[in-house]
């Protein structure tokens, strides 16, 4: 299928991933080529075939509902570039202006 610049732009919005104009230009034909290759899958006989999401056939895996030690708060916050007190600090979520 044809992939336009607009399609890639929309995907970059969905993925919260800003792309430069050059990247948009480059990715559109590359995605088109990769998807053309993927088209081959449509010829696979999948009628009545179940999907494999997981190879081990595990059902729900339960563990005992027991309190385990968790990471100390300071350690959890140690890797952020912006914090305030015991919170991760982020830019404005709701624009109230």
């Amino acid at each position, binding site marked *: 299928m044809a992939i336009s610049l607009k399609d890639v732009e929309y995907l970059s919005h*969905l993925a919260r991933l800003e792309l430069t104009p050059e990247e948009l230009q480059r990715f559109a034909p590359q995605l088109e*080529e990769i998807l053309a290759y993927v088209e081959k899958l449509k010829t696979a006989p999948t009628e009545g*075939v179940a*999907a494999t999401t*997981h190879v081990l056939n595990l059902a729900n*895996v339960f563990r005992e509902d027991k309190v385990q030690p968790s990471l100390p708060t300071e350690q959890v916050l140690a890797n952020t570039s912006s914090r305030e007190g015991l919170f991760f600090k982020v830019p404005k979520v709701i624009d109230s202006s």
Partner: protein
Amino acid sequence: MTVSEIHALYQSGKTSPSEIIEQAIRRIESLDPKIHAFAWFDPQWVRQQVKVLEARGGGRGPLWGIPVVVKDNICVQGAPATCASKILSGFDPPYNATVIEKLRAAGAILMGMANMDEFAFGSSCEHSCYGPTRNPWDLGRVPGGSSGGSAASTAASFTPLALGSDTGGSIRQPASFCGVVGMKPTYGRVSRYGLIAFASSLDQIGPFSSTVADSALLLGAIAGFDPRDSTSGNVPVPDYLQEIKQGAKGLRIGVPKECFGKGIDPEVNEALQQALEQCKKLGITVKEVSLPRTEYAIPTYYVVATAEASSNLARFDGVQYGYRSASGQTILDMYAKTRGEGFGPEAKRRIILGTFVLSSGYYDAYYGHALKVRTLIKEDFDRVFREVDCVVTPTSPTPAFKLGEKLADPLTMYLSDIFTISVNMAGLPGVSIPCGFTKAGLPIGMQWIGRPFEEGVLFRGCHAYERAAGWHTKRPPLS
């Protein structure tokens, strides 16, 4: 040196871990500037571990005093883990991966973090924010990827052992390009706790080594059920070194006819045929089998793996760890800019592709459909494993290619994984071992694939072949 050679030296009192580690440090310091296997290396951090080990006393674990390098996507406390990506720059893991706890308990010395393709996206180790790793056999060629640093470190004898991860061939293909042994265990054999996720239904951690016995030893040390990884298999871990002793006689190998079509380098084909002849002399039966759905493996993979990757990589948003863009005014703006500035080109390409196949209107046609084809690929193997114990293929259709050769054309790069990818799709164990060299002196690898949790069977066959063929004694001429 192999692990057993180092242990023999320790036992005889001829040398100590600190001497072996100092030798390794000197070798890395003098040769790694050319090869660039390491993403992070700090001799003082290594020496500190040796001090702790030598002071610890008590029993000696199976990897006591053995240097191991770890791929840069596995969490080690006290060392950075960045997946060779700017977006994780400065990330200092708050806990150890389960495999790291096991290595430490076994007495291993961690030498540092190995270079890789960013987030394990790639087959050449060129997509790294630290720059490419080079193949120790030919510095103008790639070591393969994504675990290129782990493979190169093993081939260059920086470390006898390394850990990598394999989602579509990322252990086996670089092992093949670098002339070493690389094993991708059964999905669920080794805990993924502390492995930074790429595609959660395909990822496995596994060993690199220069011999099959060392691979068996390292797998034995890291394998097993882990309550912290709900996808790890609750299956007992056998003593692989004991299993090797059973030998290869009577094993049945299947060779898929689909693996010998066009696109195979004639030297790779020739080496494999000779290896199969040698296997017959060892009492192994060789017969032709068919995996008719092989042609679907790569397209299925690039739908399933990118879908899972786009979802897993959503967590890198600049909030909790890693790089954050300074210019985002609102939170959405900050996310998009952080990710736009932090991810490299291949990561971006895969996130966009994964987002596409999961997006409304395309989900069923691409992702849903690919999951069904995945079932067909798995059924091919189920059927073949009723007749044979192992399936043998080339690991890669070609020997190591030149740096830059495939960078501009992502699809051609993807095709180099044709023989390894279906193994991850089916969750099976697979190992690449050297089976010869090209006239130009580049290593060629062959891949052995087994039934789920039958890594020991693969080790039996591979060990017998390795001893008979002797390729493992060849090392690259480095100075």
